[in-house]
């Protein structure tokens, strides 16, 4: 089925079509396939919109008013303040925690690297390293 025509059919349910679009759709609906799609969409939309008006649990309005009374009696300033703090800092705390873990891991890795034997050579003075490598005894020369 032509996608463009199907999209036009969908659009026709929720917004006004231009004269050209309306005519195009009218002509296209002569096709049994598109007509069938229209009926299915109507059936689906009708099932969604035809539902009986629901309600919340019993005495809903009384329960809401009781909560509002409690709020007015106990004050909400502190609760709102903490709610706002938690909301604002939740994301920062998450990012901060991750960054702390990464830094801690990096610190562990670099500390391990610095304690390896290869670095002990750097502690030798230049004279020690030169004379150690190039020392020759008199007997060897003779």
């Amino acid at each position, binding site marked *: 089925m032509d996608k463009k025509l199907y999209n036009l059919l969908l659009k026709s349910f*929720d917004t006004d079509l231009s004269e050209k679009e309306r005519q195009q759709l009218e002509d296209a609906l002569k096709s049994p396939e598109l007509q069938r799609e229209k009926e*299915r969409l109507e*059936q689906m939309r009708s*099932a969604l919109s*035809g*539902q009986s008006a629901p309600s919340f649990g019993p005495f809903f*309005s009384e329960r809401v*008013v009781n909560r509002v009374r409690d709020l007015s009696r106990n004050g909400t300033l502190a609760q709102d303040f903490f709610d706002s703090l938690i909301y604002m800092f939740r994301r920062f705390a998450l990012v901060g925690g991750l960054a702390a873990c990464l830094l801690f891991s990096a610190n562990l890795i670099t500390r391990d690297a610095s304690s390896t034997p290869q670095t002990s050579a750097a502690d030798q003075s230049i004279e020690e390293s030169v004379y150690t490598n190039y020392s020759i005894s008199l007997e060897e020369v003779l």
Partner: protein
Amino acid sequence: MDATREGDYDAFRIFVKRHESRIASTVYGMLGQCPEADDVGQEVFIRFYKALDTFRGESAPLTYLTRIAINLSLNELKRRKRKHLLFPKSTDDVKHVSVESDEPDKNEMQRIVNKGLEKLEAKFRSVIVLRLIDGYSTKETAEILDLPEGTVLSRLARAQKKLKEILEPYYGDHHG
């Protein structure tokens, strides 16, 4: 509204009763039949009450209430998703419903469609709930969701295509 602002709880009770059904339709549409819907519903009106002093009437109270209801429902859906990631459980599958009957009756169709609605992503579900279940116009839906009308139309189209795919087994070879 003015009486409520002045602390008249009876006035607020009447206000809640007047709008309960519409808000329930929105919340149940978004969350399905579940115990949390009642809590979310209460929270909608509590939040509205708290915001009364700053509510300037730029939109109708029902529009404002519905916006709160959608936002709180989306939060509940996110919370549910996180919980599901930690504690996955099998959910009822629409496919498990029998398709032998030649013509599902109206209630069965509604049940199937609602099951399909639960499978939609939150952003698609919200436009379907507002436009098709609650009966808001496309323009009103766009206002509530703070989206351009074009985006609402696009999401409606995609949502209906997805729903149709989900419901495909139930149409079978029936014509007309």
